[in-house]
């Protein structure tokens, strides 16, 4: 496992952190939910890189699809913008 | 066998039952001295307020929030701090959690 | 040898178009044109990148390694899924964007907006 793995791993981790930061910082809740989906996606890729395909599938099924779906439904049931 | 000892003191229920029984007997005896002419449902039972009319239950009712008025007023400075602490804000609950976490980490980490 | 060259060519094409998708996503002015970049280029790039993997798998299968069949067929399944879902997703996003009131930048003609203008009853303006 050489330097390529380290580069990929570090890059994906940095992207995951950035995506979570985006999810926290954006005022539009819908955009935050989308960023959460992106974070989930990258997290799943990270699990995949760390040789955990079982967890990657679970994270894909739950994090990318169901979590996003539930959050979107909740935003639909409430409202989209954060108040100032 | 019923005595509970704690190094410097003890606690015996038998003694307590005896004390309670004696108290009860005394109470019953004193009750016997009451007037036999006292009857329920007559004028006797009504309160006498210097000839004034008896106030209605709403007026007589002392609200629970007024009960320890003196105590709460004297401790006003303490209560203002405590009330400010209990904001009811979910984020503040977590902030307290993180605060205690950090302080304890500081204590144990430095030690 | 020929196979190796083919694989390298495929990888080169695929990477080029994926990179193009990323750049296009940043350069284009509005959501519709970005969809052009984001959908077409990634799909085309994926076809070639996954195609190279399928080639490797078929080669392994040819050399009597059963793992190769799994590699080839499952990669192809992923490719088919991408081919099926990507354009539909793009369509859904474009429709949603238009319904929520995003106008195409510099449009010379917008027949959909005209049609929607006629039937004002169902003019929805996206999220609240």
């Amino acid at each position, binding site marked *: 496992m050489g330097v390529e793995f380290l580069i990929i791993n570090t890059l994906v981790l940095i992207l995951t952190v950035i995506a979570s930061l985006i999810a926290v910082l954006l005022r539009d809740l819908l955009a935050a939910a989308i960023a959460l989906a992106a974070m989930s996606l990258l997290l799943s890729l990270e699990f995949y890189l760390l040789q955990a395909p079982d967890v990657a599938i679970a994270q894909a099924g739950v994090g990318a699809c169901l979590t996003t779906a539930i959050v979107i439904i909740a935003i639909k049931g409430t409202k989209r913008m954060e108040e100032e | 066998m019923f005595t509970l000892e704690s190094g410097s003191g003890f606690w015996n229920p038998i003694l307590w039952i005896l004390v309670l029984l004696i108290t009860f007997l005394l109470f019953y005896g004193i009750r016997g001295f009451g007037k036999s002419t006292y009857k329920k449902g007559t004028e006797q039972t009504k309160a006498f307020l210097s000839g004034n009319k008896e106030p209605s239950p709403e007026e*007589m009712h002392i609200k629970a929030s007024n009960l320890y008025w003196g105590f709460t007023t004297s401790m006003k400075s303490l209560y203002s701090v405590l009330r400010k602490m209990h904001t009811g804000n979910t984020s503040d609950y977590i902030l307290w959690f993180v605060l205690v976490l950090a302080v304890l*980490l500081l204590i144990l980490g430095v030690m | 040898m020929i196979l190796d060259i083919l694989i390298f060519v495929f990888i080169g094409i695929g990477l080029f178009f994926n990179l193009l998708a990323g750049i296009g996503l940043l350069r284009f002015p509005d959501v519709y044109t970005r969809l052009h970049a984001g959908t077409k280029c990634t799909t085309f790039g994926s076809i070639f990148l996954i195609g190279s993997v399928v080639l490797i798998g078929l080669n392994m299968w040819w050399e009597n390694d059963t793992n190769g069949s799994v590699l080839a067929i499952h990669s192809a399944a992923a490719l088919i899924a991408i081919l099926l879902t990507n354009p539909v997703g793009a369509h859904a996003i474009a429709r949603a964007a238009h319904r929520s009131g995003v106008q195409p930048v510099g449009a010379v003609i917008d027949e959909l907006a005209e049609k929607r203008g006629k039937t004002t009853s169902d003019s929805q303006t996206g999220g609240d």
Partner: protein
Amino acid sequence: MTVLEALLQHSPALIIAIPLLSAFLLPLVSRIHAKVRDVFALVMLGVTSCFVGLLASDVLSHGPRIYIFGAQNLRVPLVRILFEVDSMGVFMAIITMMLAIIAVIYSWSFLHQEDGLDKYYTLLLLVVTSALGMELTGDIFNFFVFLEISCIASCALIAFWVTEGEALEAAFKYIVVSSIGALFVLFAIGIFYAQYNALNIATLAHLLLFTFLDKIALVILLVSLGMKAGLAPMHMWLPDSYGRAPPSIVLIIMSATLASFYGLLRVVFTFYGNVLTTSLRFSLPAHVVIGWILIALAIVSILIGVIMALVQTDLLRLIGYAAVAEIGYMFLAVGASIAALGTSYATVALQGGVLHILNDAVDIGLLFLVAGAIYYVTKKRSLDDLSGLARTMKFTTVFFIIGLLAVAGMPPLNGFTSKFLIYESVYQLNPILSIIALLGSILLLAIFVKVLYAAFLGPELPGLKDVKEAPKSMLLAMGFLAGLAIFIGLFPNLLLDTLVKPAVSALLDHAQYISMVVGGL
């Protein structure tokens, strides 16, 4: 092997499996008839109590028991989950079962007009299961799983009255607080796993070295479980949720809270038992530092609990703050016993603390049931609207007076016995602590005298004229707890000798707990 022996051997598994199975079956059973469902829940809890009793009698006479899931004997590294039942766990299990059965009997008439009761009973059984699991398990990740079950199920139960916004708010606060606490517990588990590659409590305790990471994990566990147990200043969720959940549920949530408290005891005494005497900087032993940390938090809890309870007007919320103060007493006892580890009064303090767990469950539970009965008959929460209930609710008044005296630690009742032990032992550590504890008791008495005066005495308000006595099953539940309060108050030694002293010695004797598992390698 007789049938009884077989049942005994498998009872740790069955204690969890039977309520779990009945929780899964309950949605199907409740299709038949509402009455069947109510009786089914009670019967299943009764069966579980029988197993708890069986296990308790065995554990108290023959020492701790181990049950391994999925294998007959221990394998070389402890890969499987195992239950390790000692006297302390059994003691907590008995408390949990008692509270559960009383809650079910009380709910029969308390909630009979509501809908959604099949879900209610299901979740109730699940919370009971989770509390039992937390008390019996010997695996730290398993503990986390049960902690999460109790979080989720209790949260749903707190939101039972969905038409009230406050109930939903309390439920949301509860789940945010407890899920963050549970996530930090998982983080601590990760730290342990990284260092020692084990998840078994006994193995981890055997291997523990008290590195810097272990200190971080200890702090995380202390604070998270302390928050779940309602320790100030992380107690704010507790009055919210206790005040807005149905009072029958409060008993169940209380059992989960006490199970978290038990988890904290387990962490400090067993998990870090080997390293408690390590010297830190300034040649202070670790146990002194930890003990005084707990004492400081406990005193804050007692003072905040009583002072805030004094000004509450919502009856249930008031009792919630009193519960915070009671938690403070337990932590005071535990902290004192850790700070003075090795001395004789440390044992006495721990006895007081462990006995106070039971007394807290009985007293605060009784008060909540009384408050629930008042709410049931008047539909009013605020003390300002209540008056003169003693005229119409005679039994309830008597039960309330018993609960009042017990909580305040008045002599002939159970609250006194444990507080007596706590005062006596804490006095030898530091007299000021004892004075603060006494002050707290006096203020508790004042608080509940206020409630007595405001709600039960005084003139009869016209809005409360047609109030009737609470239904029979509610009276039965209250009467049971009141009787227990009197019984423990009069004969504390019976309980202290049979249950509390073995539990305390099991807590202090971490070497035996560890050797039960590790010695068998």
